[in-house]
């Protein structure tokens, strides 16, 4: 993974000093609440319903064991002994004290971490496929480019006060695990006929209250132009994006209002001024970035037959099938640790678990650990011969629920239990659904289903792109839930359609059950929920749900 040099280290430590001074001046009354707001947000600090929330950046979801141990120690010292993995691969603390945040940031800097630009109307932490560098279906490792984008966007002087937040995702594999179609900018790595790397540039996708699938404005951008092209897009957006209405300020609204072609024309006009200028990437810089993401010292191992491994034990077999993925190196497997224990908020992880996971990352791999936007944790390099031993330890640690990719692998925002923006609670909904569908055989028979829950329109739980989406709404002071069907991420992304009038909290598990029964009755053999929905449409689901 990327390692800081003196330059990176100095910038992060100057950032800590800057924020310490700003916090001090705020506490002395020299900075108003209003002025302090963007300053604290750009350091990841929210003022929440019950306490502040600190969002720590995990650039493109990559962590090492030392960082995990530091996070564990910080949660004990400054918080309540647990952390939360967010839907943007970041780590959130729910109970820090405002005046201690500079100390937390200083401790994070010791392990090359920070909370820079994890919130606010600026370029946010860049995200990537959690299987970058190890996925069997990878075209090219996205991480070097993510790091190049991270550095360019960090403390960018021109783009710290954009109309609204700005999120960039990069995907380097054939199947999209980074949701590139629903980001402000999505970059899909492609290869031309000659095998050269290029980026398909998608702009103006997004979720929130106006979900939009992005538009491709460049089919194949050469890597050397990556930063100048991004800078041109941001410059157009910074000047033309709406600032009169926060709900219409995202780039998706601008692209839609102008039309993708006209937007592209403006970008290219702006680009002409800087293309081939100093910001053009050099081959040396691309190689330098790539040098940090070279494959670790894999052993030469025989590829083992997964079905033979599965004979060991039925529970192990289920876990193997759902929680591990194909690795590009023979004899290795990617393992997902499910932070989806029923009764625990999806994505929550305790200090003890973080420490054990750090050890496991070293013992069963090369010390690298990933966070995912499905709010799980990944050990990317596990030898197949170690899977059984690892599984036993994960069972002990309660992160082996064999539910990855199933109905019970719920994506869920913190919701009304924590977040001051939320209209409704989301965590208890996730729990009620997990309890209703405890029969794993039934869950497996349903096949691949993504169920996503957001407590409000801001859509942190990505409900629009869940095959089943649940959105908390406020109806005359009561918490209600709107269900949508047919959303999906991936390169054929679609926005879910609303089933109909919303439901009270206690009705939600019943409605989900009716939706699933409808699916089962209409499904062709082995068909995924999404494909059945796309084939039969909304009507049969609607009839059943409101019967």
């Amino acid at each position, binding site marked *: 993974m990327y390692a800081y040099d003196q330059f990176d280290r100095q910038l992060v430590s100057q950032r800590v000093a800057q924020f310490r001074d700003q916090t001090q001046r705020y506490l002395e009354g*020299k900075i108003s609440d209003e002025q302090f707001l963007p300053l604290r947000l750009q350091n990841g600090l929210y003022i929440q319903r019950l306490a502040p929330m600190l969002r720590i950046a995990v650039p493109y979801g990559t962590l090492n064991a030392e960082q995990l141990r530091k996070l564990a120690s910080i949660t004990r010292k400054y918080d309540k002994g647990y952390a939360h993995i967010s839907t943007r691969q970041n780590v959130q603390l729910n109970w820090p004290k405002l005046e201690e945040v500079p100390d937390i940031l200083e401790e994070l800097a010791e392990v090359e971490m920070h909370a820079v630009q994890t919130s606010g109307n600026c370029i946010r932490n860049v995200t990537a496929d959690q299987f970058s560098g190890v996925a069997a279906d990878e075209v090219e490792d996205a991480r070097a480019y993510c790091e190049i984008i991270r550095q360019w966007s960090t403390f960018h*002087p*021109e*783009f710290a006060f954009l109309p609204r937040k700005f999120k960039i995702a990069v995907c380097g594999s054939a199947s999209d695990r980074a949701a590139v179609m629903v980001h402000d900018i999505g970059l899909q790595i492609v290869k031309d006929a000659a095998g050269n790397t290029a980026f398909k540039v998608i702009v103006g996708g997004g979720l929130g209250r106006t979900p939009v699938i992005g538009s491709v404005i460049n089919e194949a951008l050469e890597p050397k132009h990556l930063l100048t092209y991004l800078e041109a897009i941001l410059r157009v957006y*910074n000047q033309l994006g709406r*600032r009169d209405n926060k709900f219409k300020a995202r780039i998706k609204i601008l692209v839609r209002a102008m039309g993708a072609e006209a937007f592209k024309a403006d970008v290219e006009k702006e680009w002409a001024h800087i293309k081939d200028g100093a*910001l053009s990437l050099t081959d040396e810089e691309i190689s330098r970035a790539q040098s940090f993401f070279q494959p670790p010292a894999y052993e030469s191992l025989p590829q083992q037959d997964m079905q033979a491994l599965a004979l060991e034990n039925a529970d192990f077999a289920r876990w193997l099938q759902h929680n591990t993925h194909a690795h590009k190196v023979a004899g290795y497997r990617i393992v997902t640790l499910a932070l989806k224990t029923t009764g625990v908020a999806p994505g929550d992880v305790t200090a003890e678990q973080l420490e054990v996971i750090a050890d496991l990352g070293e013992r069963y791999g090369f010390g690298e650990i990933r966070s995912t936007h499905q709010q799980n944790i990944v050990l990317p390099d596990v030898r197949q011969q170690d899977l059984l031993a690892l599984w036993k330890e994960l069972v002990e640690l309660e992160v082996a629920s064999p539910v990855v990719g199933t109905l019970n692998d719920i994506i869920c925002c913190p919701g009304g239990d924590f977040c001051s923006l939320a209209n409704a609670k989301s965590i208890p909904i996730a729990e009620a659904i997990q309890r209703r569908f405890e029969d794993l055989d039934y869950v497996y028979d349903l096949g691949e289903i993504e169920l996503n829950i957001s407590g409000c329109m801001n859509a942190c739980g990505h409900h629009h792109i869940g095959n089943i989406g649940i959105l908390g709404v406020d109806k005359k002071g009561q918490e209600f839930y709107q269900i949508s069907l047919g959303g999906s991420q991936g390169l054929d992304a679609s926005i879910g359609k609303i089933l109909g009038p919303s439901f009270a909290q206690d009705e939600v598990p019943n409605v989900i059950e009716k939706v699933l029964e409808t699916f089962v009755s209409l499904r062709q053999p082995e068909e995924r929920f999404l494909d059945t929905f796309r084939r039969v449409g909304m009507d049969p689901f609607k009839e059943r749900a409101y019967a």
Partner: protein
Amino acid sequence: MPKIIKDLNVVEDSWQVWRDTESLPTSGGYIVPLALWQAHKDALLALGDIAVFLASDQSPKLLGADINSFALIAVDFPKFADGRGFSYGRELREQHGFTGELRAIGDFMRDQLYFLKRCGFNSFALQSDELDEALASFNDFSDAYQPSIDQALPIFRRR
């Protein structure tokens, strides 16, 4: 005389901002709105030293060929969260080659000085009683990843 920050020093400054878009000032020494400039160019020039300011929805392109006739151009920040002026600063310096004084006016804050300077601003009518203390914010960072007005090369060409 009011004090501003110019070229990293606190100095006394005699320019005044004229926000009326209909009537003209009676003497020089004013920074006037773009619309007034466009409508009364000759009358304003006859008054003596005149500068112009851009509102946050007025791109430098609207100044056309006049850009390099000004000794001072100001960019008005209606709210500190409105960051359009950062792009205008860079555009004036990088695309139009403006070398005169580029001043931030309106509602910006001390904690934006470092980024404003990187975007080409060299004078700041900062609304604060603590201008001397505010100078410290220019040193928030000693270097940067990106190229901009104060550093032509990105760090990756200097590493």
